[in-house]
Each structure stands twice: as C-alpha cells, then as structure tokens.
C-alpha cells in the first residue's frame, strides 16, 4: 500500500529543507522589524509541512491520517487562541483611576492611541 519513493525525491526534499533553513537564518539577520516573527514562523511551518508530507508519507496515506494531522491544529488553536483572548484584552477594560476587579492590571488608558501597544508589542512594536 505505501508508496515507495525514489531516493532522488528524498534528496530533493532534503535540499528544499536546507534552502529554507538558510533563508530563515538570513531573514533573521535582516531587520524586518515586526515582520520578523511572522516570516520565521511561516518558514518553519512550510518546513514542517514538507517533512510531514514527504518524509512521513502523509501525502500517500489514508484520508483518516490526514484528518488526524489536521485536527491537531484545532486543539492548538483552542489552547493558544483562547488563552490569548485573555492576555491581549487585559489592557482594554479601563476603570476610572486605575486597577479594576481581580488583578486586571490597567496600564494603558482606552483613549491613548497605542491602546493595544503595551499588550501586544509583538505585532506593532516599532523598531529603533
């Protein structure tokens, strides 16, 4: 059942992975400011998908295996996404003159333009 790929295809996959690694290292040294993080993550995801599809034969395996691999993203999304609904929105609720109930630390007033700035500098932190 499982597909026997020629050696050449494995070597080309290895080649692409090496190229992607050099790109990500190069990208790390050029200063793209806030884009650095998404670019590095995107390259890592492509490398991971390449390994999953070719080295781990998911490309040729059953639909169920593909579904299981994809379902993992749902649960990671739950873990990261919902936890960050808390951490990113901690700065938004402003009560007059300071801290609100239960440790909701208020460091940025609602009117200040950089409202989400402190809470999420990863996206918008200006470089200098």
């Amino acid at each position, binding site marked *: 059942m499982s597909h026997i790929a020629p050696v050449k295809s494995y070597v080309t996959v290895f080649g692409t992975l090496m190229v992607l690694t050099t790109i990500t290292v190069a990208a790390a040294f050029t200063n793209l400011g806030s884009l650095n993080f998404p670019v590095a993550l995107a390259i890592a995801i492509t490398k991971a998908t390449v390994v999953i599809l070719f080295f781990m034969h998911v490309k040729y395996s059953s639909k169920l295996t593909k579904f299981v691999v994809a379902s993992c993203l749902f649960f990671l999304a739950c873990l990261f996404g919902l936890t960050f609904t808390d951490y990113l929105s901690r700065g938004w609720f402003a009560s*007059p003159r300071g801290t609100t*109930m239960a440790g909701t630390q208020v*460091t940025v007033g609602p009117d200040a333009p950089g409202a989400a700035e402190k809470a999420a500098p990863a996206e918008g932190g200006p470089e200098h």
Partner: protein
Amino acid sequence: MLSGIPLFPVQASTVAPDVDRLYFLIIAVTSFFAIATVIAVAIFAIKYRDDSGEKVGAQIHGSIPLELAWSVIPFIISMGIFVYATVVFFEIVRPPAETMEIYSTGKRWMWRFQHVDGKSEINELHVPKGRPVRVTFTSEDVLHSLYFPAFRVKADAIPGRYSSVWFEATETGEFHLFCAEYCGTKHSGMIGKVVVMEPSAYQAWLSGSDGQPLAVRGQQLFQQLACVTCHLDDNTGRGPSLAGLFGTTVELEGGAKATADDSYIRESILTPQMKIVDGYQRLMPTFQGQVNEEGVMGLIEFIKSKAATARPRPAAAQPTAAPARP
C-alpha cells in the same frame, strides 16, 4: 443576625439585590426544567412498568422537530441568562468614578487594611455606610482572595499585581470577611469582620487614629529612599517630575503610552526597567526588597497628594536628558 439558622445571606451592598435577583431567576428556570424531566421520568417509569421483562416497547426512533425544539429553546434561554449575568458582572467590575480608597495586603493568614488617613487594622475593616468604597489590594506571598459574602464581591489577590473590589454598604453591622483561595495551613483562619458604621460614627472612629496619614508616611519614605534626589518637582532632575502625575497619560520610550495609575507607579518603583519615560535614561535602581507593600502604598498616596505644579513640558532643554524624541 448571627443567631438562629441563616438560610440566606444578608443583602448589605447595592450590588447584592441584583445578584440575588439573578440567582432566583436561574433557580426558577433550572428547577422548571429539572422538575419537568423528573416528573416525566417518574410517570413513564410507573405507567409503562412491566415486570415480566418480555414485553417490547413501541417502535419510536426520534423526531427531528422535538430534537430541534429542546436544543434551540434551551440555547435561547441560556443566552438570555448569559446577557443578564454579564450586565450584573460589569456592574460589579466597574467602580463608580469617586470611591473612598482603602489599601490592603494579604499575607499568609492575615489581611492588613490601610486607610488613607493612616489608620491600619488587621483582619478587620471599618467602612462608612452609603459611600462607595474601593479596596485595592495585593498579596505578598501566595494567592489569596478577598471575599465579602454579604456584599457578594470577591477578587483574587495575586502577588506582583494589584486587584481591587468595590462595594457600597447599605446595611450597618458586622459581616464576614473571608480568604476564598486556598493558601495553606491557616487558610480558614485568614478571616475577619467588616464593620459598617454610620458615616458620623465612622468619622469618630477614624479621628481617633494615632498613625499619621499614609501620604505623610509616603513623604518620609520619599526622602528616606532618596527619591527626591532625581525626581524634582521643577522637572530639572534626572527623573521625571511626579507633581500632578497621577491619572495622567505618560509618553514611554518607543512611543507606547501608559496611564499613571497605582499599578504603573508600583511597577515603576519595584521594576523600573520595564517602562522608561520618553527622554530619560535607564538610571533608576529597583527598590524591590527595600520597601514593603505598605511603603509602596504610602509612596502612591504621597504621589497622589502632590498637586499639579506648573510642570514644564519634557521637551524643554534637559541638562542630562538625551536629545528629545521627535
């Protein structure tokens, strides 16, 4: 009202009636569904009872409309409850504009309350009736939770951060005060009384205080810890002037902005390197360990009390500051 068997907690704050109304609404809705289902099960069990075990039930496989009915209707009801509960929640979370400030620190197995004018008490809190009071508190070691059942409010005390609860007492008398987050051996001993008094009686109780006001103690610390050497009021020192700082929005290094509230001042004292005011060097040492929680609260009160003198804009030439940011 401590005698006899209490079945329902006294409503001693403006929020309590709303919370109890929500409680009775959900009791009504849930008991309706519970009793209906239990009666249905009982009727079917008795009516269709068959002890031979050999009779066969009717061939019913289900009905889509019924299924939709009892999934959509409960969903709509629960959304209604959700909206009402959220309205009550934001009433609890958002304090009114003007509140009477009380500071507190939770430490393993005791609550220490610090009134602004200097009087401090342990495991006891005297508050006036009819005035919104806000207790801003933190913990010095593990998680605690300041809980007033009679006022229906609670908030966890998290070490390293400020939490706050607000209430407006409507009944005089003594009510319970608990620690609601497990904190070790004497977790059940970290309790006390909140005494609600008539405003006049409260003033009398307050005036009998021996300690000097918190702001005065803060000023002493301000001198003692040599804050005054850098933070000059006329903004010529190496640190930003603190006159009239409280509540304003501060320009930070790197363009971010922050409201100078109690959390900001506490963070600037204990971990100054986290936020640097625009145009100033990273000079301030951390005072972690040199000043305890009461000291920080004293300094905050002192900074609050510093009236806004004429504060020249930071853009003015600074002898030591880096070239002003564009």
